[in-house]
Protein backbone atom coordinates (compact mmCIF):
# COMPACT_ATOMS: atom_id res chain seq x y z
CA UNK A 1 0.00 0.00 0.00
CA UNK A 2 1.47 3.30 -1.16
CA UNK A 3 0.60 6.23 1.13
CA UNK A 4 2.40 9.01 -0.74
CA UNK A 5 -0.83 10.17 -2.47
CA UNK A 6 -2.48 10.80 0.91
CA UNK A 7 0.36 12.99 2.23
CA UNK A 8 0.62 14.79 -1.09
CA UNK A 9 -3.11 15.45 -1.06
CA UNK A 10 -3.09 16.76 2.51
CA UNK A 11 -0.22 19.10 1.69
CA UNK A 12 -1.71 20.21 -1.62
CA UNK A 13 -5.15 20.80 -0.09
CA UNK A 14 -3.68 22.81 2.82
CA UNK A 15 -1.69 25.01 0.49
CA UNK A 16 -4.57 25.36 -1.93
CA UNK A 17 -6.84 26.41 0.94
CA UNK A 18 -4.22 28.93 2.07
CA UNK A 19 -3.95 30.33 -1.45
CA UNK A 20 -7.72 30.48 -1.84
CA UNK A 21 -8.10 32.23 1.52
CA UNK A 22 -5.37 34.76 0.76
CA UNK A 23 -6.98 35.78 -2.52
CA UNK A 24 -10.59 34.85 -1.82
CA UNK A 25 -11.27 36.61 1.48
CA UNK A 26 -10.41 40.10 0.17
CA UNK A 27 -12.36 39.37 -3.02
CA UNK A 28 -15.38 38.25 -0.98
CA UNK A 29 -15.15 41.37 1.17
CA UNK A 30 -15.02 43.57 -1.91
CA UNK A 31 -17.94 41.71 -3.52
CA UNK A 32 -20.03 42.13 -0.37
CA UNK A 33 -20.10 45.91 -0.75
CA UNK A 34 -22.91 47.78 -2.42
CA UNK A 35 -23.91 46.37 -5.78
CA UNK A 36 -22.35 47.67 -8.99
CA UNK A 37 -22.12 46.34 -12.54
CA UNK A 38 -18.41 45.64 -12.22
CA UNK A 39 -18.99 43.70 -9.01
CA UNK A 40 -21.81 41.69 -10.63
CA UNK A 41 -19.54 40.73 -13.52
CA UNK A 42 -16.68 39.74 -11.21
CA UNK A 43 -19.10 37.74 -9.04
CA UNK A 44 -20.19 35.75 -12.07
CA UNK A 45 -16.61 35.15 -13.24
CA UNK A 46 -15.66 33.94 -9.77
CA UNK A 47 -18.40 31.31 -9.94
CA UNK A 48 -17.29 29.78 -13.26
CA UNK A 49 -15.14 27.00 -11.72
CA UNK A 50 -18.32 25.64 -10.14
CA UNK A 51 -20.12 25.26 -13.43
CA UNK A 52 -17.40 24.56 -16.02
CA UNK A 53 -16.37 20.93 -16.55
CA UNK A 54 -13.12 20.46 -14.58
CA UNK A 55 -11.26 18.94 -17.52
CA UNK A 56 -12.17 21.93 -19.70
CA UNK A 57 -11.00 24.28 -16.98
CA UNK A 58 -7.86 22.16 -16.59
CA UNK A 59 -7.14 22.21 -20.28
CA UNK A 60 -7.27 25.99 -20.58
CA UNK A 61 -5.29 26.37 -17.39
CA UNK A 62 -2.67 24.05 -18.92
CA UNK A 63 -2.59 26.12 -22.11
CA UNK A 64 -1.90 29.14 -19.89
CA UNK A 65 0.74 27.71 -17.55
CA UNK A 66 2.53 25.19 -19.79
CA UNK A 67 6.08 26.11 -20.75
CA UNK A 68 4.78 27.27 -24.13
CA UNK A 69 1.90 29.25 -22.64
CA UNK A 70 1.97 32.97 -21.84
CA UNK A 71 2.21 32.55 -18.06
CA UNK A 72 4.38 29.44 -18.22
CA UNK A 73 6.94 31.17 -20.44
CA UNK A 74 7.39 34.01 -17.97
CA UNK A 75 7.69 31.59 -15.06
CA UNK A 76 10.20 29.47 -16.96
CA UNK A 77 12.40 32.50 -17.60
CA UNK A 78 12.38 32.94 -13.83
CA UNK A 79 13.37 29.29 -13.41
CA UNK A 80 10.00 28.21 -12.02
CA UNK A 81 8.32 25.15 -13.44
CA UNK A 82 4.60 25.07 -12.71
CA UNK A 83 2.82 22.64 -15.05
CA UNK A 84 3.13 18.94 -14.10
CA UNK A 85 4.53 19.67 -10.65
CA UNK A 86 2.83 19.55 -7.23
CA UNK A 87 2.53 23.35 -7.47
CA UNK A 88 0.17 22.91 -10.40
CA UNK A 89 -1.91 20.58 -8.21
CA UNK A 90 -2.08 23.35 -5.59
CA UNK A 91 -3.23 25.82 -8.23
CA UNK A 92 -5.81 23.32 -9.50
CA UNK A 93 -7.18 22.76 -6.00
CA UNK A 94 -7.25 26.49 -5.29
CA UNK A 95 -9.15 27.30 -8.46
CA UNK A 96 -11.69 24.54 -7.85
CA UNK A 97 -12.32 25.65 -4.28
CA UNK A 98 -12.24 29.41 -4.87
CA UNK A 99 -15.99 29.89 -5.55
CA UNK A 100 -16.95 27.87 -2.48
CA UNK A 101 -14.90 30.07 -0.18
CA UNK A 102 -15.88 33.32 -1.84
CA UNK A 103 -19.61 32.49 -1.75
CA UNK A 104 -19.59 31.59 1.92
CA UNK A 105 -17.35 34.48 2.98
CA UNK A 106 -19.30 36.99 0.89
CA UNK A 107 -22.54 35.95 2.63
CA UNK A 108 -20.74 36.39 5.95
CA UNK A 109 -19.49 39.88 5.09
CA UNK A 110 -22.91 40.88 3.80
CA UNK A 111 -24.48 39.97 7.13
CA UNK A 112 -22.10 42.31 9.00
CA UNK A 113 -23.94 45.41 10.24
CA UNK A 114 -22.78 48.23 7.95
CA UNK A 115 -23.25 50.76 10.73
CA UNK A 116 -20.46 49.10 12.70
CA UNK A 117 -18.11 49.36 9.71
CA UNK A 118 -19.17 52.97 9.15
CA UNK A 119 -18.65 53.70 12.84
CA UNK A 120 -15.07 52.46 12.52
CA UNK A 121 -14.62 54.71 9.47
CA UNK A 122 -15.89 57.76 11.36
CA UNK A 123 -13.35 56.91 14.03
CA UNK A 124 -10.68 57.38 11.38
CA UNK A 125 -9.96 53.79 10.48
CA UNK A 126 -8.61 53.02 7.02
CA UNK A 127 -10.43 50.40 4.93
CA UNK A 128 -7.72 47.83 5.64
CA UNK A 129 -8.15 48.37 9.34
CA UNK A 130 -11.96 48.24 9.12
CA UNK A 131 -11.58 44.91 7.40
CA UNK A 132 -9.24 43.44 10.02
CA UNK A 133 -10.81 44.85 13.14
CA UNK A 134 -14.54 44.88 12.31
CA UNK A 135 -15.62 42.97 9.21
CA UNK A 136 -13.44 39.86 9.49
CA UNK A 137 -13.96 39.28 13.23
CA UNK A 138 -17.73 39.54 12.74
CA UNK A 139 -17.81 37.32 9.65
CA UNK A 140 -15.22 34.77 10.71
CA UNK A 141 -17.69 31.91 11.15
CA UNK A 142 -18.79 32.14 7.54
CA UNK A 143 -15.17 32.49 6.41
CA UNK A 144 -14.21 29.41 8.42
CA UNK A 145 -17.12 27.43 7.00
CA UNK A 146 -16.10 28.44 3.48
CA UNK A 147 -12.49 27.50 4.19
CA UNK A 148 -13.51 24.05 5.43
CA UNK A 149 -15.53 23.50 2.26
CA UNK A 150 -12.63 24.83 0.20
CA UNK A 151 -10.24 22.37 1.83
CA UNK A 152 -12.53 19.44 1.07
CA UNK A 153 -13.00 20.55 -2.52
CA UNK A 154 -9.25 20.96 -3.02
CA UNK A 155 -8.60 17.62 -1.33
CA UNK A 156 -10.97 15.88 -3.72
CA UNK A 157 -10.13 17.62 -6.98
CA UNK A 158 -9.68 15.26 -9.90
CA UNK A 159 -10.31 16.80 -13.29
CA UNK A 160 -8.31 20.00 -13.08
CA UNK A 161 -5.38 18.26 -11.35
CA UNK A 162 -5.31 15.46 -13.93
CA UNK A 163 -4.91 17.98 -16.74
CA UNK A 164 -2.39 20.43 -15.26
CA UNK A 165 -0.36 18.24 -12.90
CA UNK A 166 -0.62 14.94 -14.76
CA UNK A 167 -1.04 11.59 -13.07
CA UNK A 168 2.58 10.90 -12.19
CA UNK A 169 2.96 8.41 -9.33
CA UNK A 170 5.28 9.64 -6.58
CA UNK A 171 5.23 13.20 -7.89
CA UNK A 172 1.83 14.58 -8.75
CA UNK A 173 -0.46 11.62 -8.13
CA UNK A 174 -2.86 12.92 -5.48
CA UNK A 175 -5.33 10.74 -3.60
CA UNK A 176 -8.22 11.03 -6.09
CA UNK A 177 -5.86 10.26 -8.98
CA UNK A 178 -4.44 7.26 -7.11
CA UNK A 179 -7.96 5.93 -6.51
CA UNK A 180 -8.69 6.31 -10.22
CA UNK A 181 -5.45 4.51 -11.09
CA UNK A 182 -6.21 1.62 -8.73
CA UNK A 183 -9.67 1.22 -10.20
CA UNK A 184 -8.17 1.34 -13.70
CA UNK A 185 -5.74 -1.46 -12.88
CA UNK A 186 -8.38 -3.58 -11.13
CA UNK A 187 -6.76 -3.10 -7.70
CA UNK A 188 -10.11 -2.66 -5.98
CA UNK A 189 -8.84 -3.35 -2.45
CA UNK A 190 -6.38 -0.45 -2.61
CA UNK A 191 -8.99 1.72 -4.29
CA UNK A 192 -11.50 0.99 -1.53
CA UNK A 193 -9.03 1.69 1.26
CA UNK A 194 -8.03 5.05 -0.24
CA UNK A 195 -11.65 5.95 -0.94
CA UNK A 196 -12.53 5.28 2.71
CA UNK A 197 -9.60 7.41 3.86
CA UNK A 198 -10.71 10.16 1.53
CA UNK A 199 -14.27 10.07 2.87
CA UNK A 200 -12.89 10.01 6.42
CA UNK A 201 -10.78 13.12 5.89
CA UNK A 202 -13.63 15.07 4.30
CA UNK A 203 -16.13 14.09 7.00
CA UNK A 204 -13.67 14.90 9.80
CA UNK A 205 -13.03 18.36 8.42
CA UNK A 206 -16.71 19.12 7.85
CA UNK A 207 -17.81 17.73 11.23
CA UNK A 208 -14.94 19.55 12.95
CA UNK A 209 -15.98 22.78 11.29
CA UNK A 210 -19.64 22.13 12.11
CA UNK A 211 -18.77 22.15 15.82
CA UNK A 212 -18.37 25.88 15.74
CA UNK A 213 -19.88 26.90 12.43
CA UNK A 214 -23.34 26.28 11.13
CA UNK A 215 -23.34 25.45 7.40
CA UNK A 216 -25.95 27.30 5.49
Amino acid at each position, binding site marked *: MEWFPLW*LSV*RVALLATGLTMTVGIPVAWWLARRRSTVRQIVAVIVMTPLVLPPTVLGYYL*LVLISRYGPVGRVLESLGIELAFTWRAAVLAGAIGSFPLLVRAAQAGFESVDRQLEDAARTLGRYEWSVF*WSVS*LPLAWRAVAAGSALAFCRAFGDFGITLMVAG*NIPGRTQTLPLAIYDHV*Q*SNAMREANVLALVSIGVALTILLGAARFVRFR
Partner: protein
Amino acid sequence: MTRNWTIRSRAGRPIVGGLLVLTILAGGAHGQAQSRLTVFAAADLAFAFKGIVPLFERATGASVILSIGSTGVFAQQIAAGAPADVFFAANASFVDDLIARGVVIPATRSLYAQGRIVLATRRDAPFRPTELRQLTDPRVKRIAIANPQHAPYGKAAEQALQASGLWDTLKAKLVYGDNIRHALQFLQTGAAEAGVVALSVANAPEISWTLVDARLHEPLNQVAVVVRRSQHPELGGAFIRFVVGPQGRPIMKRYGFLLPGDF
Protein backbone atom coordinates in the same frame (compact mmCIF):
# COMPACT_ATOMS: atom_id res chain seq x y z
CA MET B 1 -10.16 50.87 20.33
CA THR B 2 -9.07 48.36 22.89
CA ARG B 3 -12.12 46.27 22.20
CA ASN B 4 -11.28 46.08 18.53
CA TRP B 5 -7.85 44.80 19.36
CA THR B 6 -9.27 42.05 21.54
CA ILE B 7 -11.56 40.90 18.77
CA ARG B 8 -8.68 40.94 16.34
CA SER B 9 -6.48 38.81 18.55
CA ARG B 10 -9.26 36.24 18.87
CA ALA B 11 -10.25 35.92 15.26
CA GLY B 12 -7.67 37.53 13.01
CA ARG B 13 -4.60 35.81 14.37
CA PRO B 14 -5.59 32.18 13.82
CA ILE B 15 -6.03 32.95 10.14
CA VAL B 16 -2.71 34.76 9.83
CA GLY B 17 -1.09 32.00 11.86
CA GLY B 18 -2.70 29.34 9.70
CA LEU B 19 -1.34 30.92 6.57
CA LEU B 20 2.14 31.02 8.10
CA VAL B 21 1.99 27.32 8.92
CA LEU B 22 0.86 26.61 5.40
CA THR B 23 3.75 28.52 3.96
CA ILE B 24 6.16 26.54 6.10
CA LEU B 25 4.53 23.26 5.13
CA ALA B 26 5.10 24.20 1.52
CA GLY B 27 8.79 23.48 1.88
CA GLY B 28 8.39 19.72 2.00
CA ALA B 29 6.60 19.02 -1.22
CA HIS B 30 9.31 18.56 -3.80
CA GLY B 31 11.97 16.09 -4.86
CA GLN B 32 12.75 15.10 -8.43
CA ALA B 33 15.21 12.28 -8.73
CA GLN B 34 17.42 12.45 -11.81
CA SER B 35 17.84 8.70 -12.38
CA ARG B 36 14.16 8.05 -12.94
CA LEU B 37 12.45 7.16 -16.17
CA THR B 38 8.91 8.49 -16.50
CA VAL B 39 6.80 6.46 -18.87
CA PHE B 40 3.43 7.67 -20.18
CA ALA B 41 1.60 4.60 -21.43
CA ALA B 42 -1.77 4.14 -23.10
CA ALA B 43 -4.48 2.49 -21.02
CA ASP B 44 -4.41 -0.75 -23.02
CA LEU B 45 -0.89 -1.37 -21.68
CA ALA B 46 -2.00 -1.18 -18.03
CA PHE B 47 -1.72 -4.89 -17.31
CA ALA B 48 1.20 -5.82 -19.56
CA PHE B 49 3.40 -2.99 -18.26
CA LYS B 50 2.72 -3.92 -14.63
CA GLY B 51 4.62 -7.10 -15.49
CA ILE B 52 7.32 -5.62 -17.72
CA VAL B 53 8.36 -2.60 -15.64
CA PRO B 54 9.75 -4.58 -12.65
CA LEU B 55 11.80 -6.75 -15.05
CA PHE B 56 13.26 -3.67 -16.69
CA GLU B 57 14.07 -2.13 -13.31
CA ARG B 58 15.86 -5.30 -12.27
CA ALA B 59 17.77 -5.54 -15.55
CA THR B 60 18.95 -1.92 -15.64
CA GLY B 61 18.81 -0.66 -12.05
CA ALA B 62 16.76 2.30 -13.22
CA SER B 63 13.52 3.17 -11.49
CA VAL B 64 10.46 3.66 -13.65
CA ILE B 65 7.49 5.91 -12.92
CA LEU B 66 4.56 4.54 -14.86
CA SER B 67 1.63 6.79 -15.65
CA ILE B 68 -1.32 5.08 -17.33
CA GLY B 69 -3.94 7.12 -19.14
CA SER B 70 -5.55 8.17 -22.39
CA THR B 71 -3.32 8.48 -25.45
CA GLY B 72 -5.03 11.73 -26.42
CA VAL B 73 -4.59 13.39 -23.02
CA PHE B 74 -0.94 12.30 -22.83
CA ALA B 75 -0.28 13.73 -26.29
CA GLN B 76 -1.74 17.08 -25.17
CA GLN B 77 0.36 17.04 -22.02
CA ILE B 78 3.60 16.12 -23.78
CA ALA B 79 2.98 18.92 -26.28
CA ALA B 80 2.58 21.19 -23.25
CA GLY B 81 5.95 20.09 -21.84
CA ALA B 82 5.03 17.23 -19.50
CA PRO B 83 8.09 15.59 -17.89
CA ALA B 84 7.70 12.23 -19.65
CA ASP B 85 10.76 10.41 -21.00
CA VAL B 86 8.97 7.89 -23.16
CA PHE B 87 5.46 7.86 -24.60
CA PHE B 88 3.75 4.60 -25.54
CA ALA B 89 0.72 5.58 -27.58
CA ALA B 90 -2.11 3.27 -28.58
CA ASN B 91 -1.77 4.41 -32.17
CA ALA B 92 0.57 6.21 -34.56
CA SER B 93 -1.22 9.44 -35.43
CA PHE B 94 -0.83 11.12 -32.03
CA VAL B 95 2.91 10.37 -32.10
CA ASP B 96 3.25 11.68 -35.64
CA ASP B 97 1.46 14.81 -34.55
CA LEU B 98 4.01 15.25 -31.73
CA ILE B 99 6.85 14.69 -34.21
CA ALA B 100 5.40 17.47 -36.38
CA ARG B 101 5.36 19.74 -33.35
CA GLY B 102 8.99 18.90 -32.66
CA VAL B 103 8.55 17.80 -29.06
CA VAL B 104 9.64 14.17 -29.53
CA ILE B 105 12.71 12.63 -31.17
CA PRO B 106 11.69 11.34 -34.65
CA ALA B 107 14.54 8.80 -34.85
CA THR B 108 13.19 6.98 -31.80
CA ARG B 109 9.71 6.43 -33.26
CA SER B 110 9.11 2.68 -33.07
CA LEU B 111 6.18 0.45 -33.91
CA TYR B 112 6.12 -1.75 -30.82
CA ALA B 113 2.88 -3.68 -31.15
CA GLN B 114 -0.34 -4.22 -32.97
CA GLY B 115 -3.51 -4.43 -30.94
CA ARG B 116 -6.67 -6.47 -31.44
CA ILE B 117 -10.22 -5.73 -30.45
CA VAL B 118 -12.64 -8.24 -28.96
CA LEU B 119 -16.33 -8.53 -28.37
CA ALA B 120 -16.60 -8.92 -24.62
CA THR B 121 -19.34 -9.71 -22.12
CA ARG B 122 -19.51 -10.66 -18.49
CA ARG B 123 -18.99 -14.39 -18.00
CA ASP B 124 -22.17 -14.58 -15.89
CA ALA B 125 -24.36 -12.68 -18.36
CA PRO B 126 -27.53 -14.56 -19.39
CA PHE B 127 -26.87 -13.72 -23.04
CA ARG B 128 -23.32 -13.75 -24.34
CA PRO B 129 -23.03 -12.57 -27.95
CA THR B 130 -20.02 -13.92 -29.83
CA GLU B 131 -20.58 -12.12 -33.13
CA LEU B 132 -21.01 -8.40 -33.73
CA ARG B 133 -24.39 -8.80 -35.42
CA GLN B 134 -25.77 -10.43 -32.27
CA LEU B 135 -25.41 -7.03 -30.61
CA THR B 136 -28.71 -6.03 -32.23
CA ASP B 137 -30.45 -8.50 -29.90
CA PRO B 138 -32.79 -6.62 -27.52
CA ARG B 139 -31.19 -8.32 -24.52
CA VAL B 140 -28.13 -6.18 -25.22
CA LYS B 141 -29.19 -2.75 -24.00
CA ARG B 142 -25.85 -1.02 -23.70
CA ILE B 143 -22.61 -1.57 -25.61
CA ALA B 144 -19.42 -0.11 -24.16
CA ILE B 145 -16.65 1.18 -26.40
CA ALA B 146 -13.88 3.70 -25.82
CA ASN B 147 -14.59 7.19 -27.13
CA PRO B 148 -13.84 7.03 -30.89
CA GLN B 149 -13.07 10.77 -30.89
CA HIS B 150 -9.77 10.32 -29.10
CA ALA B 151 -9.27 6.66 -28.09
CA PRO B 152 -7.67 4.51 -30.80
CA TYR B 153 -9.48 1.33 -29.70
CA GLY B 154 -12.76 3.22 -29.75
CA LYS B 155 -11.98 4.28 -33.31
CA ALA B 156 -11.29 0.67 -34.26
CA ALA B 157 -14.55 -0.46 -32.63
CA GLU B 158 -16.40 2.21 -34.61
CA GLN B 159 -14.75 1.08 -37.86
CA ALA B 160 -15.58 -2.57 -37.18
CA LEU B 161 -19.24 -1.76 -36.50
CA GLN B 162 -19.39 0.43 -39.61
CA ALA B 163 -17.76 -2.26 -41.78
CA SER B 164 -20.32 -4.76 -40.49
CA GLY B 165 -23.13 -2.37 -41.38
CA LEU B 166 -24.24 -2.22 -37.75
CA TRP B 167 -23.17 1.29 -36.76
CA ASP B 168 -26.45 3.08 -37.49
CA THR B 169 -28.54 0.36 -35.83
CA LEU B 170 -26.38 0.17 -32.71
CA LYS B 171 -25.51 3.85 -32.33
CA ALA B 172 -28.25 4.47 -29.75
CA LYS B 173 -26.98 1.61 -27.55
CA LEU B 174 -23.37 2.76 -27.41
CA VAL B 175 -21.81 4.14 -24.24
CA TYR B 176 -18.39 5.74 -24.42
CA GLY B 177 -15.61 5.18 -21.92
CA ASP B 178 -12.87 7.76 -21.65
CA ASN B 179 -10.28 5.12 -22.48
CA ILE B 180 -10.32 1.38 -23.06
CA ARG B 181 -9.98 0.46 -19.38
CA HIS B 182 -12.88 2.75 -18.59
CA ALA B 183 -14.99 1.07 -21.28
CA LEU B 184 -14.19 -2.31 -19.75
CA GLN B 185 -15.40 -1.04 -16.37
CA PHE B 186 -18.86 -0.50 -17.81
CA LEU B 187 -18.84 -4.23 -18.50
CA GLN B 188 -17.30 -5.28 -15.20
CA THR B 189 -19.86 -3.31 -13.22
CA GLY B 190 -22.70 -4.66 -15.33
CA ALA B 191 -23.66 -1.20 -16.58
CA ALA B 192 -23.28 -2.46 -20.14
CA GLU B 193 -24.19 -5.95 -21.36
CA ALA B 194 -21.51 -6.06 -24.04
CA GLY B 195 -18.49 -4.12 -25.20
CA VAL B 196 -15.97 -3.87 -27.98
CA VAL B 197 -12.67 -3.43 -26.15
CA ALA B 198 -8.96 -4.18 -26.43
CA LEU B 199 -7.89 -7.78 -26.11
CA SER B 200 -5.05 -6.60 -23.88
CA VAL B 201 -7.40 -5.56 -21.08
CA ALA B 202 -10.11 -8.19 -21.63
CA ASN B 203 -8.21 -10.93 -19.82
CA ALA B 204 -10.07 -10.32 -16.56
CA PRO B 205 -11.54 -13.31 -14.73
CA GLU B 206 -15.16 -12.11 -14.97
CA ILE B 207 -14.96 -11.30 -18.70
CA SER B 208 -15.45 -13.64 -21.63
CA TRP B 209 -14.51 -12.49 -25.11
CA THR B 210 -14.34 -13.36 -28.81
CA LEU B 211 -11.84 -11.84 -31.24
CA VAL B 212 -13.22 -9.38 -33.78
CA ASP B 213 -11.94 -9.96 -37.32
CA ALA B 214 -8.92 -7.69 -37.74
CA ARG B 215 -9.89 -6.98 -41.37
CA LEU B 216 -12.90 -4.97 -40.13
CA HIS B 217 -10.74 -2.09 -38.91
CA GLU B 218 -7.50 -0.34 -39.77
CA PRO B 219 -4.53 -2.01 -38.10
CA LEU B 220 -4.06 -0.79 -34.52
CA ASN B 221 -0.42 0.08 -34.97
CA GLN B 222 0.95 1.20 -31.64
CA VAL B 223 3.91 3.53 -31.65
CA ALA B 224 6.34 4.59 -28.93
CA VAL B 225 8.69 7.55 -28.98
CA VAL B 226 11.28 9.25 -26.75
CA VAL B 227 10.42 12.79 -25.67
CA ARG B 228 12.88 15.50 -26.67
CA ARG B 229 12.96 17.02 -23.18
CA SER B 230 14.04 13.70 -21.66
CA GLN B 231 17.11 13.85 -19.42
CA HIS B 232 18.07 10.29 -20.37
CA PRO B 233 16.92 9.53 -23.91
CA GLU B 234 19.20 6.46 -24.14
CA LEU B 235 17.42 4.83 -21.20
CA GLY B 236 14.07 5.68 -22.81
CA GLY B 237 15.18 4.00 -26.04
CA ALA B 238 16.40 1.03 -24.01
CA PHE B 239 12.95 0.67 -22.46
CA ILE B 240 11.26 0.63 -25.86
CA ARG B 241 13.69 -2.09 -27.02
CA PHE B 242 13.11 -4.01 -23.79
CA VAL B 243 9.34 -4.13 -24.33
CA VAL B 244 9.80 -5.82 -27.72
CA GLY B 245 12.91 -7.75 -26.65
CA PRO B 246 13.23 -11.30 -25.28
CA GLN B 247 11.94 -10.37 -21.80
CA GLY B 248 9.08 -8.05 -22.70
CA ARG B 249 7.83 -9.95 -25.72
CA PRO B 250 6.27 -12.97 -23.96
CA ILE B 251 4.42 -10.68 -21.54
CA MET B 252 3.10 -8.49 -24.34
CA LYS B 253 1.96 -11.60 -26.18
CA ARG B 254 0.27 -12.98 -23.08
CA TYR B 255 -1.90 -9.87 -23.06
CA GLY B 256 -2.86 -10.33 -26.68
CA PHE B 257 -0.54 -7.94 -28.51
CA LEU B 258 1.01 -8.84 -31.83
CA LEU B 259 4.64 -7.83 -31.87
CA PRO B 260 6.88 -6.66 -34.73
CA GLY B 261 7.70 -9.71 -36.84
CA ASP B 262 4.36 -11.35 -36.03
CA PHE B 263 2.26 -9.21 -38.33
